[in-house]
């Protein structure tokens, strides 16, 4: 009988699999494509592929040839926090033209910006919860966000892309019931934060999913020049409203919440999340102070130039948006803008993704992307 030879075992191949996450995927927050190399479910490599929403902002800024006309296009850079995009741009142009803005307008801008910050954080928190499978907190956040949108719509006439700030002032007068509406919102919103904490923040499944995940050490964050909650989540107290005040932010009392690693390591997803929640409370404080101090009378269009006469010069202005540092670099000629470059926080923050998602599971990758809170309009511009 011939000896039975067992077949030689084929060399065990350790093969990785490449999967495309996006451009159509429920948790990429838009049209981001991630080229994910996985070994089983463990992510070995992530490569973000961007450009699916490139909308030629800089080309438009050059082609329109008018500073006023660019404002609605800045809205569309980061459509979740449109007022912040406008504010940065408008401040930059005002600095270039050396315009003085009335007091009332400054207060109004700050209040609107903080309302917008709350709205934007609500969306960020909600979609983060959605990424982790919690559907209901997302809708509760949207109910609150809807209340803010109602105020903003009353002021500007639009729900999402406001085009309300203009160089030197505001596009329209402030409606009479703005103050009372805002007070009403501020008082009704505080208990809702507590409810959100009950439902999501302290939920132990949520903590299990976010603590110690996607840890971003402070050093790495600084090296990648991260900003906003992404940087503050890593324990670095850096907020342009405090550290380099623009507009009238130096008049208000507020804290800069930073990640402390309460549930795990400093700089994990939970820290980034809690920074957003606490920032909403700080924004409420700013709104309350601003409402108290705002002058009741005054023409908001006082300083608005009838025609903007461009000047030669260069200017860089940075502001703190809900996602981080937004910078506008304007090179101006006599005839109008020569080049307007927007430095958006989403793009910079996204670039950290490959560094912090190595070795995570696919489910963690979703959580990490959610905690960065990118807006693809800001990434691709």
């Amino acid at each position: 009988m011939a000896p039975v030879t067992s077949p030689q075992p084929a060399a065990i191949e350790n093969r990785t699999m490449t999967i495309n996450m996006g451009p159509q995927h429920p948790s990429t927050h838009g049209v981001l494509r991630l080229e994910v190399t996985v070994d089983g479910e463990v992510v070995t490599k992530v490569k973000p592929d961007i450009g699916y929403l490139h909308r030629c902002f800089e080309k438009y800024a050059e082609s329109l040839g008018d500073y006023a006309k660019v404002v609605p296009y800045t809205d569309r850079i980061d459509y979740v926090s449109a007022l912040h995009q406008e504010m940065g741009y408008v401040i930059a142009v005002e600095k270039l033209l050396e315009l003085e803005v009335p007091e009332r307008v400054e207060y109004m801008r700050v209040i609107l910006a903080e309302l917008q910050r709350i709205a934007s954080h609500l969306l960020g928190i909600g979609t983060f919860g959605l990424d982790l499978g919690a559907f209901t907190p997302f809708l509760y956040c949207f109910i609150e966000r809807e209340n803010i949108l109602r105020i903003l719509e009353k002021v500007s006439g639009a729900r999402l892309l406001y085009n309300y700030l203009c160089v030197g002032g505001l596009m329209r007068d402030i409606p009479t019931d703005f103050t009372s509406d805002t007070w009403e919102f501020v008082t009704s919103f505080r208990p809702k934060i507590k409810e959100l904490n009950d439902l999501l923040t302290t939920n132990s499944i949520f903590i299990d999913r976010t603590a110690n995940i996607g840890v971003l050490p402070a050093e790495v964050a600084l090296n990648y020049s991260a900003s906003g909650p992404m940087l503050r989540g890593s324990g670095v107290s850096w907020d342009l409203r405090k550290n380099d005040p623009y507009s009238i932010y130096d008049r208000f009392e507020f804290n800069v919440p930073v990640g402390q690693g309460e549930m795990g390591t400093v700089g994990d997803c939970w820290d980034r999340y809690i920074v957003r929640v606490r920032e909403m409370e700080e924004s409420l404080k700013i709104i309350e102070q601003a409402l108290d101090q705002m002058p009741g009378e005054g023409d908001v269009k006082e300083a608005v130039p009838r025609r903007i006469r461009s000047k030669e010069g260069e200017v860089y202005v940075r502001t703190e948006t809900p996602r981080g540092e937004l910078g506008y670099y304007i090179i101006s000629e006599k005839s109008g803008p020569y080049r307007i470059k927007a430095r958006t926080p989403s793009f910079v923050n996204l670039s950290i993704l490959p560094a912090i998602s190595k070795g995570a599971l696919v489910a963690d990758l979703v959580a990490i992307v959610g905690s960065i809170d990118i807006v693809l309009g800001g990434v691709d511009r």
Partner: protein
Amino acid sequence: MVQTLKKSWTTFKTIFTGMGVTMRHLLQPSVTLRYPEERDELPSGARSKLFVHIDDCIGCKLCERACPVNCIAIETVQATKDVDLGKTSTGNPKRFWITTFNIDMSKCMYCDMCVPPCPTECISMVPEYEYSEYDRNNLLFQFSELSADKVTEVKEKAEKEQEEKQRKKKEAARKKKAQKADQTSKAKQKNSEG
């Protein structure tokens, strides 16, 4: 072991806290707006559709120039002297026939920048948002009320007047030239004499 039990206990506790919150919401009335039956009242100045009172338009094209997306197209023809187009409701005299006033709402970005420059307040945002269409071409709104015949008639008239004007201008120019030539020649004469 104790730690595991403790952790399980907190897990249960937080799960029940969360479920308590959702149960409270389950018993609360909903916040939903039942859209086709109920409608929210839009705030004054809501931006949802552009409308032009063409009677009030004086053809100054300021809105066209203010529009960042160039979705407004206006063509005007100067009215001849024998026609009086009347005045707008704000009292501005009208001097142009508006032969075309098209707004392409499929391009518009609802930025509201065309509204403030208008001197007669004839272009405005109206709170009407229900105009979805099966065909995109229906989103091109034409506000000019002149018929095609009228447009050609007006154009011809204006052209004629223009020609007349041009002729007159030319004549005047020629006369001027002649005079100038006259003067220069006279001056030359003087010079040569002097």
